[in-house]
């Protein structure tokens, strides 16, 4: 039985052994050790090498029996499949409780490999050891500054927990984490999922105080009922974002049934996700958007969105996107309209989206944002157009006239203004305990832009477009509705 102790050994080990450390910088056994040693892991690190060769300037031992008992909790296995039963036995004998098995040559390689894999699981069960993989790329655990994987990157710390049936998606999500600054708590590639699977990881995330949202990539599902039941229990505790590839099954359905032919695998899976309260995403970017929104924003209490924009066109597209969701872009309440009349020039839109029509002055944007976000009939606010001033500032700073002609002063002013807008927006979000989303393509186009950098420095996520922000917010709102469908909160919730 897998216990919390096993997960502690896996994600927060007191010491690690790399089994099969290699002197060749192209080998997994080298890269794994390199990554563990390079990202700040504080525990003791051991490595085995048959020839006791020095790797990365460190001494190695010939096998695990030479490691003092109780010094290591996790073994990262890069040895060939045929050696691994012995590696596990030795690991258990020195008190190791968890193994991540990167070695290939198991179920993915055919019948013989599958047999080896099943033998490995029986052995692990016998030894009371948790094994993840085989054929996995590794794991990351930022609370322990642990980068035990044969791939990059090592992401910033945060509260998104990632589990994937494909190691490359772990990297994809972590690349987006590094780019956006919204960090990761734990990330793991479960490889062939021989002993533990996606749901075991999600159940751990649900209980893990460092993790506030699960982000998973799923391929094959074998027992649909169990999957749905366990996923729902996790979703009662934390939000879960699912990216799914492949078909859930190829079995033929009743030939006589018309509804049967309409209930395709994809539609069944979409329905299951809605029913059990998980959010299904259709791309890596969308999945990360939604996970980042869950990780950084308070839950919206209702569907009423206000859009604040400095330019009309963006507001129009945002309104179009809202119309495809369950969110509402209601007319502005009369008292809020009156308040804004006092803050903005007469040409402002007087409607939602709130188009400032270029009427913003140094203090207008903060005053408008505070009035809108704080209004009791607004559940969430989307802010568009941040970063424009500092974007012009960048062109000036990089141009031939800088810093003369007053450019130095105005560029600094632009940067300060954009930083201030972002900080005010996010402070208003905290004060009102409501989501405020900031969207700009500068999130991708120029991550150093002052507005984007300010959003990032407060730990928030700058969405790459209004639509992407709106779809993510809709997912947050749908979770609110789902949780509410069980009635008022009780002790269980």
């Amino acid at each position, binding site marked *: 039985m897998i216990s919390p102790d096993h997960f502690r050994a896996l994600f927060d080990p007191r010491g690690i052994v790399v089994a099969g450390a290699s002197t060749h910088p192209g080998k997994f056994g080298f890269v794994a050790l390199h990554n563990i040693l390079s990202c700040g892991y504080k525990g003791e690190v051991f490595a085995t090498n048959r020839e006791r060769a020095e790797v990365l300037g460190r001494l190695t031992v010939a096998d695990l029996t030479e490691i003092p008992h109780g010094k290591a909790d996790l073994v990262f296995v890069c040895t060939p499949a045929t050696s691994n039963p012995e590696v596990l036995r030795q690991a258990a004998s020195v008190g190791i409780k968890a193994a991540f098995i990167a070695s290939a040559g198991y179920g993915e390689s055919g019948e013989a490999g599958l047999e080896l894999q099943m033998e490995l699981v029986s052995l692990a069960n016998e030894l009371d050891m948790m094994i993840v993989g085989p054929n996995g790329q590794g794991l990351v655990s930022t609370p322990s500054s642990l980068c035990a994987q044969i791939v990059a990157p090592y992401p910033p710390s945060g509260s998104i927990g990632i589990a994937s049936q494909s190691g490359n998606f772990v990297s994809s999500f972590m690349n987006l984490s590094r780019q956006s600054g919204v960090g990761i708590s734990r990330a793991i590639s479960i490889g062939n999922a021989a002993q533990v699977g996606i749901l075991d990881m999600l159940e751990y995330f649900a209980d893990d105080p460092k993790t506030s949202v699960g982000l998973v990539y799923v391929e094959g599902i074998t027992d649909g009922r169990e999957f749905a039941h366990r996923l729902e229990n996790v979703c009662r505790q934390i939000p879960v974002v699912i990216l799914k590839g492949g078909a859930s*099954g190829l079995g033929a359905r009743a030939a006589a049934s018309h509804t049967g032919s*309409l209930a395709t695998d994809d539609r069944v899976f979409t329905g299951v996700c809605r029913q059990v309260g998980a959010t299904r995403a259709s791309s890596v970017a969308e999945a990360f958007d939604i996970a980042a929104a869950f990780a950084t924003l308070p839950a919206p209490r209702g569907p009423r969105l206000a859009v604040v924009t400095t330019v009309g066109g963006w507001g129009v597209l945002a309104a179009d996107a809202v119309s495809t969701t369950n969110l509402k872009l209601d007319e502005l309440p009369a008292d809020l309209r009156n308040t804004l009349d006092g803050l903005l020039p007469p040409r402002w839109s007087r409607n939602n989206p709130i188009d400032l029509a270029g009427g913003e002055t140094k203090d207008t944007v903060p005053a408008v944002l505070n009035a809108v976000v704080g209004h009791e009939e607004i559940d969430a606010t989307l802010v568009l157009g941040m970063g424009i001033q500092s974007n012009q500032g960048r062109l000036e700073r990089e141009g031939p006239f800088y810093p003369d002609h007053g450019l130095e002063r105005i560029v600094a002013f632009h940067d300060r203004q954009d930083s201030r807008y972002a900080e005010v927006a996010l402070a208003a979000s905290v004060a009102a305990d409501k989501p405020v989303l900031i969207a700009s393509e500068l999130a991708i186009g120029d991550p150093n832009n002052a507005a984007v950098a300010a959003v990032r420095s407060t730990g928030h996520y700058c969405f790459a477009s209004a639509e992407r922000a709106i779809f993510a917010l809709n997912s947050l709102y749908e979770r609110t509705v789902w949780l509410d*469908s069980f009635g008022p909160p009780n002790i269980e919730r």
Partner: protein
Amino acid sequence: MSRILSESDSKELLVKYGIPFLPEVLISQADQAEAALVGTTGPYAVKLCGQNISHKSERGLVRLGINGVDAVKHACQELLDAARPEDGATGALVAPMAIGLREFIAGVSVDPIFGPTIVFGVGGVLAEAIADVTVRLAPIRRHDAMDMLGSLRSRSLLETFRGEPAVDLEALADLLCSLSDAAISIDGLESIDVNPVMIVNGAPVALDALVAFSSTGGES
């Protein structure tokens, strides 16, 4: 091989779970038509009902908009004559035509991975092309039933539509919950098609039903 119930047997089974069907009469001979029409007004729908018939429309076994006793009799005779030996015991189903512009499809389908599911979507002749369908695992909660209605891309069809009132969402959700009850209560079930569910004056009415059992189980 799966085993199916005739339309009238399917309806008899499903009505116990609360699926809203129209009153109709099953006759075995055309000359029983006159008695069947007493107290009703046309136009009528006449269908061939048989133990093993699953695709009536494709075989031209549905006659709609029939007016007058003689025409109904004639239609019944034609349909009874069209029966094939493999159709099993047959009869003609006679019912007043339901008039409505909107058709939906509802049912139960057993997914090979997830088991019994409740299916709801836009119906009619374009159903497969439009493919606006939503699915949940049985059993569903009432929240799920309402969420299914809201999940349709064409959910504007549920509002007022070309002079017809808005759909009674509670009644439509009831229908889906009834299907869910049926899905978890009927042993050996393979599938249920309730197709079409027509919206008549805002209320959902099930006009046809087909229940199939898997080879390994089922009511006898």
